[in-house]
């Protein structure tokens, strides 16, 4: 007898695959997962092309006059770029939820590592949204205030962006640990991606050198301090976006399996 797709009293229960295929859960998971790529595109347009702080157009060595001058010369471009940047950064937590939802399936009623992911992604998003506000403050009245003030706000942007790496590192490690500590036979993400997540998390840490150095590879114009964390952060976002979207497309939306492999 063919399964009847109607529901309601007296009918056969709805086909679970059909339910999973069309459920709101699947669609909402897809939406949040796609905000990863959306975030990257928006950030490249806003942060790289328009506002130009990656690669940075200011160096820690620049005089206060020079910093203020750059803001004055490119005011509109920078301001528009910062708007797009803050939107991109706000999408970060939206995207982060997609991974947490997937790995939530691995934990039971009190999912510590999922909670950890959620709180650290929230903290991280708050930080970088605020630090974009610092740059916006620098771009508010350059030339009308003392250039030292403009320089201070500009410095704060970079110092907070890179120096507050710990929540991001903890986030990536929490995700990695959830993947690696999984003892059930349900593999939400491949094991190598767990190692990659932990490794990426560790590579956000060199951003911390921004507080100490103004030149060379360890200042904010430096490869180790600025580019390594950003490149790995971007790769990490892309990787997990791909893996998550693949999971959702394959229908892995609800399935849980908490018992350890026999």
């Amino acid at each position, binding site marked *: 007898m063919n399964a009847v797709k109607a529901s309601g009293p007296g009918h056969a229960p709805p086909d679970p695959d059909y339910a999973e295929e069309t459920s709101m859960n699947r669609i909402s998971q897809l939406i949040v997962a796609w905000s990863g790529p959306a975030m990257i595109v928006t950030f490249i347009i806003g942060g790289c092309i328009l506002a130009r702080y990656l690669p940075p157009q200011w160096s820690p060595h620049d005089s206060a006059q020079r910093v203020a001058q750059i803001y004055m010369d490119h005011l509109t471009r920078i301001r528009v770029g910062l708007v797009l940047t803050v939107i991109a950064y706000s999408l970060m937590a939206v995207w982060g939820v997609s991974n947490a939802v997937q790995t939530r399936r691995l934990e039971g009623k009190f999912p510590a590592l999922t909670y950890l992911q959620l709180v650290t992604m929230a903290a991280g998003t708050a930080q970088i949204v605020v630090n974009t506000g610092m740059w916006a403050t620098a771009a508010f009245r350059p030339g009308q205030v003392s250039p030292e003030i403009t320089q201070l706000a500009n410095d704060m942007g970079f110092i907070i962006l890179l120096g507050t790496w710990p929540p991001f590192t903890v986030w990536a490690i929490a995700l990695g640990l959830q993947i690696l500590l999984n003892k059930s036979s349900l593999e939400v993400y491949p094991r190598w991606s767990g190692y990659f997540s932990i490794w990426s998390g*560790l590579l956000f840490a*060199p951003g911390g050198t921004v507080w100490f150095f103004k030149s060379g590879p360890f200042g904010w114009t430096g490869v180790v301090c600025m580019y390594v964390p950003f490149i790995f952060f971007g790769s990490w976002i892309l990787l997990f976006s791909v893996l998550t979207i693949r999971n959702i497309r394959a229908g892995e939306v609800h399935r849980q399996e908490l018992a350890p492999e026999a």
Partner: protein
Amino acid sequence: MSTAPPRSASNERVALSTPAWRTQGHVPGEVGIWVFILGDMVVFGWLFIVFMHQRSQHAEVFDQARRSLNLTLGGLNTLLLLTGSWFVVLGVHALRRGHQPAGKWLIAGAIACGLGFVINKVFEYHEKIVVGHPRAQADFFMYYFVLTGIHLFHLMLGLIVLTLMWRVAHKATLRPRNFRTLEAGACFWHLIDLLWLILFALFYLTSN
């Protein structure tokens, strides 16, 4: 009538022949840990090259700075890490053969070696920071502190990994999944050892 399959001569040979970890083509630990290890090697390799390039452009100053480093502590640290790594090798082997007490003690020994390294490093850093160094040597010490600092960070993670391995060593029965953990953890510890071998040569032994 026995329901067990008759033990043929070839079965006996298979049972006595090479265990999984000794067969050619066996990935130590699992593939994922090698993503991590090789990736880290690439990043560090590139940092080494950046340092050497910088050094070549300021060879005199870098050499002077090098001479103010404590070669004894550096050498001792190298010996310490190598011995710790050997303890890890012995420990994993012991656990493979079912010698649990030996396995536990050897892994504990490796942890002790790691802690010894940390203590040495703290002394060295303290000595360096308190005595200070001429401004001209600032670049050398920037690289020195950042690179050995990142290594030290890895080492502390390694100590956590060793502790996890030590806990695994306490289990009553060790399954293939446990050996995967032990091998992967051991490989991570050996990575920390091998990175230090190069750091030692680059900072303490490279002269003009």
